[in-house]
């Protein structure tokens, strides 16, 4: 059946070709060229770029990124899940207000918000002054330029992406199911693991994906808050394109990153499909 607004697909196709297909194919093509000091890339065609990637501690770079992104995802889930749960039980008026506050930080550029975290977490920052004034600590805590600061920054920036999909799956959940389970004598433990958790699974998947994937490529937060002591995937790719101008190597790294993202999203959609079949 042809939809009334069928012609709207053309701008979409144009968009996908210009901004997704062409750049991605270009990256894919460059992978097979050789490094050239002044021309970005040149013949002969080669497969050695992938090999070089692993000579350059790429595995370590990759594991660093994975650790930061994975950690941020787990923390966001632990914080975001109860948050979304409570949110779904509020009165409509309070709900609206709470959602408004979740969205509010998006009105300010995330780079500026990251820089303001530098001011908050520093030795002479607000947080340390507060603890010192209360007498909780005697010397300022070392927060800025540590992994803790990086996690704070990543979770702070990405938490809304965890809360919102989980919240929407809580909203969709029929609350009467919980009452029914209670009436039939289920323990709190059972209610949570056998009803709430399975019904909000798709929200958890979406939330984790929406936090994990951006965190994997996000390099300015670890740079600004962590003191740029590790090289992460994002920095590595940027350096290959801008600094050493080794485009084939940068393309190889970004191809690996894209592949991981594709695999993860495919797994996610597969999971979703199974759920639709059940419905």
């Amino acid at each position: 059946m042809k939809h009334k607004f069928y012609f709207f697909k053309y701008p979409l196709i144009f968009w996908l070709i210009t901004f997704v297909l062409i750049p991605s194919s270009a990256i894919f093509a460059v992978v097979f060229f050789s490094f050239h000091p002044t021309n970005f890339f040149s013949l002969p065609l080669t497969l050695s770029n992938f090999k070089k990637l692993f000579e350059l501690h790429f595995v370590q770079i990759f594991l660093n990124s994975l650790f930061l992104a994975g950690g941020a995802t787990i923390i966001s889930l632990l914080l975001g899940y109860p948050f979304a749960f409570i949110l779904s039980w509020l009165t409509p008026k309070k709900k609206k207000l709470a959602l408004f506050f979740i969205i509010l930080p998006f009105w300010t550029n995330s780079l500026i918000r990251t820089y303001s975290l530098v001011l908050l977490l520093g030795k002479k920052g607000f947080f340390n002054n507060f603890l010192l004034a209360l007498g909780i600590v005697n010397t300022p805590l070392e927060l800025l330029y540590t992994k803790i600061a990086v996690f704070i920054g990543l979770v702070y920036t990405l938490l809304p992406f965890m809360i919102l999909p989980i919240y929407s799956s809580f909203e969709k959940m029929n609350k009467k199911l919980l009452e029914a389970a209670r009436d039939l004598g289920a323990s709190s433990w059972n209610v949570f693991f056998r009803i709430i958790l399975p019904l909000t699974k798709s929200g958890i998947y979406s939330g984790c994906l929406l936090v994990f994937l951006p965190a994997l490529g996000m390099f300015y937060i670890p740079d600004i808050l962590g003191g740029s002591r590790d090289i992460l995937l994002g920095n590595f790719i940027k350096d290959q394109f801008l600094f050493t101008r080794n485009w084939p190597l940068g393309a190889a790294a970004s191809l690996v990153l894209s592949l991981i993202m594709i695999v993860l999203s495919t797994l996610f959609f597969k999971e979703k499909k199974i759920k639709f079949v059940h419905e």
Partner: protein
Amino acid sequence: MKKIILTLLFTFCLLINIAQAKELYLFNWSEYIPDEVLEQFTKETGIKVYLSTYDSNEAMYTKIKLVKGEYDLIVPSTYFVEKMAREGLLEPINHKLIPNLKNISPKFLNQSFDPENKYSVPYMWGSTAVCYNSARLGKGYIKSLNDLWNPELKGKLLLPNDVREVFGLALKKLGYSINETNPKHIEEAYLELKKLLPLVKVFDSDSPKHALLNEEVLVAVTWSGEAFIANSEDQNFLYAYPKEGYSLWMDSFAIPRGAKNVENAHKFMNFILRPDISAKISQEMGYATPNQAAIKLLPPEIQNNPIIYPSQEELKRGEFQTDVQDALLVYEKYWNELKNN
């Protein structure tokens, strides 16, 4: 009829010319020129300046190479002037259009990176040396590069997030040039840096003065302008030129190939080289001006400031960065290893 069309065409061309003559696309380092200077230029000449900024020579080079004719004036460092001129990426400069070139001190002209200044006009220069908190560490704490390797500084050191500057420190410590291309010597420097890395708390090229002022670190290897600002906020921040040597740099104006407003670019350079304008820029940015007529206009505390203008003796120990060409890949390889161990 023909005449009318010709006249119309002629006026049309003229209009386009006028429209074109009124703008200048400047591609400069971030925080490297005061806004008032650009406003004053527009006020005096009617030419509107569109400013874009970059944070490394490499990023600027890649952009110039990819897109032709987007910018009229760029500000590469010495070794990038050399590299870009060699690769045919720069337009020659017409010295007749820049009478104020006579204000530039001869010691900054006709250098090996650009003989006879065919492609470049000096803008500002400075150094990369060591700024430290003397209130906490005591005066004269840093004299030599060896003092940076002091285990006492664990977690209290800031280095620039720049591979060439960081390797320059170790190369100088070993007595080599900061422009070493011998892979053996670069490897030796890498082994030295491996020992230094546990002391480093943060790599920062954006705004190292903040980490110093907030006492996140006590010692920072940084550009002179950053040290100047830290020192003007608190006199206890001192700037030391290590006895083994340090790196000097100079940034120059150059016109990229395919620039559309070449004449305006010349007008702009001539305007900047006016003594009053050069003096204003140097005073505000905390970097040294190569303009000898401008130096006389600066207040004595700036003229005699050892952070901005090192003494003759200190100047002798400094070394200008040059293009290391393919050796950059060797540096980059060890840099990756350094940061991932």
